[in-house]
């Protein structure tokens, strides 16, 4: 064998690579982990406001209920439930990878698909209970 190639790390992917079909499923989960985290960050004020309103007084609780019943808010909340569920599942997968569990290519692809499926199922269950 000839010389060792040293890969440049961290690898920087531009946006078109991320949304194109060339990205394997593990990469998609990684990208969605970032997207879901960013979405949760930008919606933190909405969530804190809703949490505060729900706990302050019977009147503010009523306001919270009427705001949460509006369909645009419901859509945002459904999106945030998915973001939390995805971030949770993908995060556990990354923790397992850190412990060298499931690092082989095939296992990593399978667990990435599992993350996508389980997070959508969790979203549907939580949607059914909460909204």
């Amino acid at each position, binding site marked *: 064998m000839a010389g060792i190639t040293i890969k440049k790390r961290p690898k920087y992917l531009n946006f078109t690579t991320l949304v194109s079909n060339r990205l394997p499923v593990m990469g998609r989960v990684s990208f969605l982990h*970032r997207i879901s*985290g960013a979405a949760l*960050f930008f919606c933190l004020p909405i969530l*804190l406001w809703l949490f*505060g309103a729900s706990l*302050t007084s019977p009147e503010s609780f009523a306001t919270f209920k009427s705001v949460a019943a509006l369909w645009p808010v419901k859509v945002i909340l459904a999106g945030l439930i998915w973001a939390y569920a995805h971030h*949770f599942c993908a*995060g556990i997968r990354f923790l397992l990878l850190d412990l060298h569990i499931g690092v082989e290519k095939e296992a990593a692809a399978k667990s990435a698909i599992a993350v996508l499926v389980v997070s959508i199922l969790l979203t549907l269950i939580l949607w059914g209970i909460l909204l």
Partner: protein
Amino acid sequence: MINRIVVGAHYGLRDWLVQRATAVIMAVYSVLIVAVLCAVRPSTFEAWQGVFANGVIKFMTFLFCVSLFYHTWIGVRDIWMDYAKPISVRLVLHVLTITVLVGYTGWAAAILWRL
């Protein structure tokens, strides 16, 4: 020799480890609070408020919030480091991110300790 810049990563094990420790704290809290809410099934304001007025749950919820905001800082900082290339822009974004997250911590404490 690593070129250390002020708006770069915080080198070493610390941030990497904090990101994982806070993740575990939040994951455990998420499962516990779902279990508590499934057991109590609060349907009225009094019952809902009663859950979070409990001293243990209040404290755990605040710990969750602190973990969330610390975790958020590391994650969002990584995003700015990847996409905000001019150092001046990145510095402003870092300062704004820290400012809102410290504010959110106070906001969360105010919500919980009003109960």
